């Protein structure tokens, strides 16, 4: 008997195959086919949905509520839409302390206000104790399309720009689980990416929020879609001290760590310096960095390469499965 296994949800090959071989054919239509962060619907509307099951529900820098707003908002922003309305579905486990629920609802309220979106509809379900883990949230989002990502216009020489340091969200959640028994002041980077909207008009050809699978996964998925290679430079990737140290101690590669308030942009080569300058003026983009280029001299079509600190080249591939630290 075939059953759902945990690995199906791990973001690896099993999941990609499931989506492309089972989900897409089942509902076959032009909107679903692109598998982008949000679908562009008729009349200039972008539409997206996401479910949130983070454990623990509170972590330094945010909670499941802020995540549920920002995650969906960011999917709209990076697909070229100004976020407008969200739906909010709560699945609650019997016995969830009331003050926990209130705290999360407050976070949702504050995050929605900060991201300039309105919670326009919602739903609440309660299941028996043990049938869910405390609280799950689904949000769907609608936005107005202001730009269309142009993967087809990406050319050699175009710049790869990240909007800030990588990996704080993953690390904050991992440490909040206290499985590593490490202490750190790292806080999740969870934040809305609305400040990126003007950059669609300043030369951005493509954007993605750096969520599950991290920068390496997000960029290698793009690399597969363009007829060039991409080369990014290890030494130029912005990392905060806590992430740098944790990566060293735990053997985790920050290139595969998730963020919830960072994005990577492909910007037309001649406008890159200007975009970088403008990004660095924004509050959330202070640590933005130009980390690489689309390239047709090095590597082959579809490859994402990392130039390491020692000067060697490494092929980066999408995350295989959830991160597993080495064991000795």
């Amino acid at each position, binding site marked *: 008997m075939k059953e759902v296994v945990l*690995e199906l949800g791990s973001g*690896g*090959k099993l999941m990609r195959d499931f989506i492309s071989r089972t989900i897409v054919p089942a509902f076959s239509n032009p909107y679903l086919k692109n598998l982008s962060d949000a679908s562009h619907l008729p009349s200039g509307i972008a539409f997206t949905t996401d479910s949130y099951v983070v454990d623990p529900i509170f972590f330094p820098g945010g909670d499941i509520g802020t995540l549920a707003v920002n995650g969906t908002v960011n999917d709209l922003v990076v697909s070229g839409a100004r976020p407008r309305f969200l739906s909010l579905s709560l699945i609650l486990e019997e016995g969830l302390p009331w003050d926990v629920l209130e705290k999360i609802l407050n976070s949702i309220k504050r995050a929605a206000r900060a991201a300039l979106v309105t919670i326009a509809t919602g739903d609440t379900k309660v299941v028996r104790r043990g049938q869910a883990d405390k609280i799950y949230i689904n949000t769907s989002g609608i936005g107005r399309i202001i730009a269309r990502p142009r993967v087809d216009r990406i050319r050699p020489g175009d710049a790869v720009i990240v909007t800030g340091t990588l990996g704080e969200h993953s690390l904050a959640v991992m440490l909040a689980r206290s499985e590593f028994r490490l202490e750190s002041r790292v806080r999740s980077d969870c934040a809305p990416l609305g400040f990126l909207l003007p950059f669609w008009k300043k030369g951005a050809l493509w954007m993605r929020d750096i969520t599950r699978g991290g920068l390496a996964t997000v960029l290698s998925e793009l690399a597969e879609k363009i007829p060039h290679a991409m080369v990014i430079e290890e030494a130029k990737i912005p990392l905060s001290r806590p992430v740098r140290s944790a990566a060293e101690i735990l053997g985790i590669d920050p290139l595969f760590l998730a963020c919830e308030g960072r994005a990577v942009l492909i910007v037309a080569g001649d406008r890159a310096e200007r975009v970088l300058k403008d990004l660095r003026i924004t509050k959330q983009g202070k640590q933005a960095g130009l980390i690489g280029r689309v390239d047709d001299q090095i590597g082959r079509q579809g490859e994402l*390469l990392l130039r390491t600190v*020692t000067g060697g*080249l490494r*092929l980066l591939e999408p995350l295989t499965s959830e*991160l597993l630290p080495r*064991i000795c």
Partner: protein
Amino acid sequence: MSLKKEFRDQRITAGLLKSISRKTRGFPHAVRIMEVCGTHTMTIHRYGLKGLLEESGVEMISGPGCPVCITPNEIHEAALLMLTDRENMVLATFGDMTRVPTGKGSLQTAVPARSSLLKIVYSPEEALDLAASRPEKEVVFFGAGFETTIPSIALTAKRAKEEEIRNFSVLSAMWLIPPPLRAILEAGETAIHGFLYPGHVSAVIGSKPYEFIAREFRIPGAIAGFEPNDILLATVSILDQIRAGIPRVDLEYKRVVDPAGNPRALALMEEVLEIKDAHWRGLGIIPRSGLKLRESLAPFDAEIKFGLSIKPGSTDLPGCRCGEVLRGILSPAQCPLFSKKCSPDSPQGPCMVSFEGACYITHKFGYSQKKTGTRAVPEENAGRIRKTGR
């Protein structure tokens, strides 16, 4: 300058490589050095030392130092059956153990029996704490490790007894590093001119357990740390020993390793564990190469507690040649499945799963060797790599 930076300083790296080139000049063939430890394999590939050393006349061969890899399939399958066939179990193990493919699938793709679950832990202690906090569950810690990890596994069994945590047991896959080295040398399947001994294992056992290699087999070796320049420094030492014709066990990781090892860890191992003959993937049964809990701790030995029958005999997936990779007679790229049917996305053997597995590391970091991006290697370098890449 921090210690870390010094051991990664590119100018020092360049100087050491030059010295290595000089010392290998005049040898009729590449000097073949086996790096025993998977973490060394990682550093060697990650920092591109593999190619740089080849250009300097040194060929690095990966050895058996990946605990996930050398744990034979019958133990992986026993763990899997505990999860799928027994109720109310928590099988706790390290992350990469869960993805090792067997004829019965992997722990990740297995559907646990009702009320049982798989829990990825980061230390044996975490599994013990889990047992203490969930007395209604049977917690089995499936721990694979060498002398680095073994003391912490031993400690959990000891604590479980002292604190009467009766719902905790250990499914052990505990391996000693020196015996397989003897087995590889006695088999004589591959030429090895020197050994790069593991740093962390040596921090526990010291340098003495390797001395038989210098004495009986006349092969030089050095204990090395895990930064690029640590490894090059140890390589220089090995080459000096070869040139002088005086093999020994040199300690190039003095900032961590004491020649006598760690007496407290050794005493704990002695107290809790006893040596047994053990079956290794690819290497067969090696006398006195594994450890198990002493009889006084039998109630915490999952094999005894649950009456498991773990016998050599289960087969690897068709075509998988991890066994030969672990013996150092096949390099990952020589395996017909490598990076084709077998990749980290769909591993056919443990060496493609573990972060310390030679196949995984070669797949992940071996870009220039794979020759996928032919343009990545400048012309003049490409020639040099071909010339020395015997």
